[in-house]
């Protein structure tokens, strides 16, 4: 018999102690002390019922549509390699030009020769699509997003997906030919509201996409997703690169889309 089987047998025997003890006490063949102990055990009240209903432990659900981002915790240099000697690609500020946290989409991870952890992140710089490495300790806790935004420049349509399923579609205005809306993968960086700029509608989202033509635009030429005071010209190629929605649509989007949502412009 293995050691574990022996313990198992012991547990089985233990389960029968109550009944066995009563029988032994009645037989008179045990010592007086043993019988006394058995009687004392028989008088004990039943164990109380637990108040908590502990559910079955469950593994994590399928997470194919889960993406991660992390806010920058301190200003840092993004490098071409996961190393302090890597070439600097960009210097990142803790805040966006709008004063909000600076979110970085996390794409990968690697330890350097000294065991320091680095994260591969998408950078909000030109050319769009630039990736770089930042020290793990420069960013805060991970935030998770189950949404994805797809902007189809040919169909002039925006679709928001949650866990892979479309939850909102709307016609959009995009950049004119000379100020094209950039294609690529980006992130929703922040959300602005309650401002006095009717041309942006009631809500505006900032993205990490940057105009390759309007590089001298205030605050760096970031592409936004926002409402409008000219709904009659949508859909169409009507903007300086931003993605314009009718105000009812941007309000619906604002109810559904969290900051940190990845954006695919195709």
């Amino acid at each position: 018999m293995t050691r574990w089987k022996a313990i198992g047998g012991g547990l089985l025997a233990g389960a029968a102690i109550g009944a066995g003890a009563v029988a032994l006490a009645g037989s008179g063949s045990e010592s007086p002390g043993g019988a006394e102990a058995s009687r004392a055990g028989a008088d004990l009240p039943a164990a109380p019922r637990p108040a908590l209903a502990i559910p079955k432990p469950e593994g994590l659900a399928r997470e194919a549509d889960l993406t991660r981002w992390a806010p920058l915790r301190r200003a840092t240099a993004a490098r071409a390699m996961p190393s302090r000697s890597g070439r600097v690609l960009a210097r990142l500020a803790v805040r966006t030009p709008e004063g909000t946290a600076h979110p970085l989409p996390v794409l990968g991870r690697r330890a350097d020769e000294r065991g320091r952890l680095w994260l591969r992140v998408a950078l909000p710089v030109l050319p769009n699509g630039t990736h770089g490495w930042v020290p793990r300790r420069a960013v805060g806790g991970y935030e998770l997003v189950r949404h994805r935004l797809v902007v189809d420049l040919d169909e002039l349509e925006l679709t928001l997906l949650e866990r892979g399923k479309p939850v909102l579609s709307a016609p959009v205005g995009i950049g004119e030919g000379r100020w094209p809306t950039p294609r690529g993968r980006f992130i929703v960086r922040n959300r602005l509201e309650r401002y006095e700029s009717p041309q942006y509608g009631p809500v505006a989202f900032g993205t990490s996409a940057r105009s390759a033509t309007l590089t001298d635009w205030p605050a760096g030429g970031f592409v936004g997703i926002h409402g409008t005071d000219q709904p009659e010209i949508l859909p169409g190629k009507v903007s300086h690169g931003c993605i314009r929605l009718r105000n009812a649509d941007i309000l619906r989007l604002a109810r559904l889309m969290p900051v940190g949502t990845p954006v695919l412009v195709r």
Partner: protein
Amino acid sequence: MSRLDLDLLDRDGALAEASDGVSRAGFLAGAATGTAGLLALAADAGAAPLRRSDAEVLNYALSLEYLQAAFYTEAERSKALSKKAAQAARTVGAVERAHVKAFRALLGRRAIARPRFDFQGVTEDSDDFLKTAVAFEDLAVAAYKGQAANIRSDSVLASAIGIHTVEARHAAWMRYLNGVQPAQSAFDEPQTRKQIDRVVEATGFLSAAPRTSARRSPRYTG
């Protein structure tokens, strides 16, 4: 060894995993079905209003369960751990999430909100993960022990003891994986809430929500 023997002596499936390669999470899921059903019935049948002081203790326990659940879940998602550490994260994480669910169900509207955490990379390195896991599990064990005498309801106490022993198993498992003696002393000291809070605060793992919105005129390209 037969499945029956294992069921009797190996409540959390560690031996099942070792002996026949059945995934620990899968085994747990199967073994726990009956128990969970019984507990649910018991809770429904014996439901009594929760005392304010017991709710406070439960919320305190919930805060630690949130911490542990978030820690193991992030570790599992990181996909950066060694096989053994990842397996532990997966199994213990599922249990801690079950604890959170149960506490929230019992507390209802009185349940505290889920805090935010920044684990600063310790979920992404096997050595750091295991060291932190040992600390968290020991902390939970000491915390449950420290609150036992404050619980007024027998049924709440029964639940707390049930979870306390599970946390102790986790502590032993993490210690074993970390190369630390699972049972070093003959007596475990309880810790007060103040002591526990001090340790949790010192980790720096509690974090504020990042500011993602502002009232400011956009300067996007328009």
